[in-house]
């Protein structure tokens, strides 16, 4: 790929989505963009970039952004954050919100839906305890294609084998030919919405828990800081944000501190200690 095209694509993606295209992510370009090129009858990545520069076609530009920003997604990815959520954070919420009986969770880059649906299953495990509660998982992503797939709640055999315990497959899915469909009550807890993390965040409302995992790694420090500050502004004072295993707020945003003994979970520092549990 021509170096000038690489630089152009880098600037284009940074402006569009905040994604920083470092040379080590170069391998993504071919695997993600060749299928887009083929769909448009274009033979090489260089010609795809040429078309992007010349056409000014917005749909084409969105398609390229979406292809580059889509992440791999697994059910219960990395395990630990989900056990922390179900064993520690959710019981705390149930305890603290016993008066108004409401809570909201935001999955800020939900991809094909495995993350919000994993949370939805964990919440449904406590269905009896939560019978008179109102709760919602808002799942957002920057890709329309991905949201369309996520909303369906249909997964291939391969997808259901990655991270999903077999008992949960039996409990929460229905077999449909070669694939598996999530049961309606699990899907209904999740509300999907198109949202760019760099857009005005206030419109989303307040959240008790935010999952923003493996998103910051794609951003430069300045953008990371902006995203974290934004999350801080929509988090309840005792709320928790989950970041990816290789991500941290330390040295980027002073508003947060790690939750002791809960790897990957962070709370606002101005949070009242009596609430921190």
């Amino acid at each position: 790929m021509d170096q000038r095209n690489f630089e152009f694509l880098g600037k284009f993606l940074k402006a569009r989505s905040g994604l920083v295209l470092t040379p080590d992510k170069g391998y993504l370009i071919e695997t993600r963009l060749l299928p887009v090129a083929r769909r448009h009858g274009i033979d090489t990545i260089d010609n795809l970039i040429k078309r992007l520069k010349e056409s000014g076609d917005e749909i084409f530009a969105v398609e390229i952004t979406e292809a580059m920003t889509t992440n791999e997604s697994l059910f219960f990815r990395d395990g630990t954050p989900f056990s922390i959520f179900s064993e520690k954070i959710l019981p705390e919420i149930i305890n603290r919100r016993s008066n108004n009986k409401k809570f909201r969770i935001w999955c800020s880059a939900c991809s094909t839906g495995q993350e919000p649906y994993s949370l939805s299953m964990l919440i449904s495990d406590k269905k009896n305890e939560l019978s008179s509660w109102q709760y919602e998982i808002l799942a957002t992503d920057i890709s329309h294609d991905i949201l369309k797939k996520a909303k369906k709640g249909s997964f291939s055999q391969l997808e259901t084998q990655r991270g999903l315990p077999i008992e949960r497959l039996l409990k929460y899915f229905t077999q449909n030919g070669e694939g598996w469909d999530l049961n309606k009550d699990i899907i209904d807890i999740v509300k999907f919405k198109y949202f760019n993390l760099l857009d005005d965040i206030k419109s989303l409302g307040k959240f008790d828990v935010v999952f923003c995992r493996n998103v910051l790694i794609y951003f430069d420090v300045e953008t990371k800081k902006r995203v974290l500050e934004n999350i801080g502004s929509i988090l309840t004072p005792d709320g928790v944000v989950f970041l990816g295993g290789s991500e941290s707020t330390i040295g980027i945003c002073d508003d947060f501190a790690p939750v002791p003994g809960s790897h990957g979970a962070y709370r606002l520092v101005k949070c009242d200690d009596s609430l921190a549990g």
Partner: protein
Amino acid sequence: MKSCLIVDDSKVIRMVAKKILTDLEFETSEAADGQQAVDSCKAGMPDAVLLDWNMPVMSGIEFLRELRKLPGGDKPIVVFCTTENDIEHIQEAIEAGANEYIMKPFDSDIIQAKFSQVGLL
């Protein structure tokens, strides 16, 4: 080092599974049908069993029921690995005491993910 008994009538599958499990630092042994697997378990219980369903002489599900009746037979973690991918088979396997279930075709990522879920890794 944990041990895993690979039970499958296909030599090729046993070979592929052995390669994956050796990379995951398991000590492996093999059986070509359920009866051989019962004999192997009577001689010494493995930590894990990777189990095919359809085999001559004794099937995987028959083996599992036999295993769970043996002294110490409740200990091994049993992961089915089969082309039987319908809900009835999965249900039957879990009821008979299987700990996890892999639907063929499988790859090293799936084996690794399932083995971590049941605490073998």
